[in-house]
């Protein structure tokens, strides 16, 4: 097995494409524009990796009827994905996304999800320590269910580091803030879809972003990715800082899932011997490629290669 993707708060994704979507009105969805698929950032990464021929174990907390549907759908996806969810009493969440290709909007309705008990967390960590030894790389990505402390990414990373595994994170500021007090990942990618805060502060100037990325490197990360004004990224390694930008126009309603494609493509690149800024370039090309069309289907490897020519990577420090 190549990768362990940790998805603490998986979700059943429902995607509706409703053109001219309007509130306070009945909106009818054509059958072919009504999709249901297993989701949650870690699960998405596992699914994308399976399309690139990479095997993974997906672990996290799962429960209830929605949880069973998610698992049944995930098992159908690919024999390259092994599931190892800890079953809990609460109900797994559902994420509803409504995309409008006429008005270029994306409306998301996410249920809050279950509450996880302390006992369940202990059981999960015990199982995680067994699974982590079976893989080369660990990806921890996405939200944390209620009851689970924000420092969990750090705790899981500390265990992975005991076995010398490469660790990727993609998470929100609150999680990163608490977790880096425990351990640093190798690759730190900020999920800034909901908030543009970095360590509790809203950054505005490019210089502030560059400084924040450099600080994370100084503290222990090998590669830091901060998204900037949605479509740009600041990338830092021990060698310097880069600003990534697309050469093409990006439709914001197509951005759904581009972060997961970014992470999965970086993992693919890492497993295939790419390092540091080249790994980030590959991930960014995948993210931009994904943002060039609607739908959850990830770009192919040849599309990613092609999109390497559609991005600008400018060294800023």
């Amino acid at each position, binding site marked *: 097995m190549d990768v362990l993707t940790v998805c603490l708060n998986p979700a059943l994704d429902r995607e509706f494409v409703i053109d001219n979507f309007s509130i306070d009105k009945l909106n009818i969805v054509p059958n072919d524009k009504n999709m249901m698929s297993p989701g949650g950032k870690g699960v998405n990464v596992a699914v994308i990796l399976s399309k690139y021929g990479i095997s993974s*174990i997906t672990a996290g907390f799962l429960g209830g009827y929605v949880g069973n549907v998610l698992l049944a759908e995930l098992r159908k996806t690919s*024999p390259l994905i*092994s*599931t190892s*969810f800890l*079953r809990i009493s609460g109900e797994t969440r559902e994420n509803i996304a409504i995309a409008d290709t006429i008005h270029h909007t994306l409306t998301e309705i996410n249920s809050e999800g279950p509450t996880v008990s302390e006992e369940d967390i202990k*059981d999960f960590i015990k199982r995680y320590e*067994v699974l982590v*030894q*079976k893989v080369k790389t660990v990806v921890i990505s996405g939200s944390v269910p209620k009851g689970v402390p924000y420092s969990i990414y750090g705790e899981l990373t500390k265990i992975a580091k005991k076995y010398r595994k490469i660790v990727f994170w993609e998470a929100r500021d609150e999680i990163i803030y608490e977790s880096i007090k425990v351990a640093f990942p190798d690759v730190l990618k900020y999920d800034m879809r909901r908030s543009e805060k970095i360590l509790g502060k809203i950054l505005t100037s490019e210089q502030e972003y560059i400084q924040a990325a450099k600080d994370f490197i100084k503290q222990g990360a090998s590669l830091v990715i901060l998204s900037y004004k949605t479509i740009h990224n600041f990338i830092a390694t021990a060698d310097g800082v880069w600003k990534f930008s697309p050469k093409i126009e990006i439709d914001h309603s197509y951005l759904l899932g581009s972060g997961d494609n970014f992470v999965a493509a970086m993992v693919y690149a890492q497993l295939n011997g790419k390092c540091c800024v080249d790994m980030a370039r590959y991930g960014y090309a995948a993210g931009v490629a994904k943002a060039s069309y609607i739908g959850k289907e990830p770009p192919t490897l040849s599309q990613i290669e092609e999109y390497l020519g559609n991005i600008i990577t400018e060294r800023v420090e």
Partner: protein
Amino acid sequence: MKNIKVKEFMIYDLTFVFENDTVEDVLNVLNKTSFSGICVVDSDLKVVGFVGEEDIIRACLPSYFNLLQTAAFLPDTNLFIKNLKKIAREPVGKYATKPVFTVKPDDSLLYIADMIMRKGYKIIPVVDENNALLGYVTRISVLESAIRGELIMEEK
């Protein structure tokens, strides 16, 4: 018949318990996963035992029960419940079946079907060459694959 292999119809699921998990923990996992039995593994994910509903039922019945032809002779049905409550907090390692009958991803459907018929297995662990857990095959998935295999052959 087409030579279908385990890896084509197994469930790639790594649900397992440890030897020191309690009987109650195991019942909880079986209930939530709808598996009739699961593997007991060590810290290397190596399969060291197997525990199913039947192992737990057997553990709650008096030792002479196997000699009886029918449950009608059971002196006290409450005894079963009492015993179940008694062992609920005990480590499951005590009640697991060892050694475990396992199969490999390249084993054939015919071989598994044969073992299911002879031994009555409902769920069988699939392991790698080091005996580490890879997943499970269930009786229903064997039956389903067997039917599909037959249909494919008839079409040809």
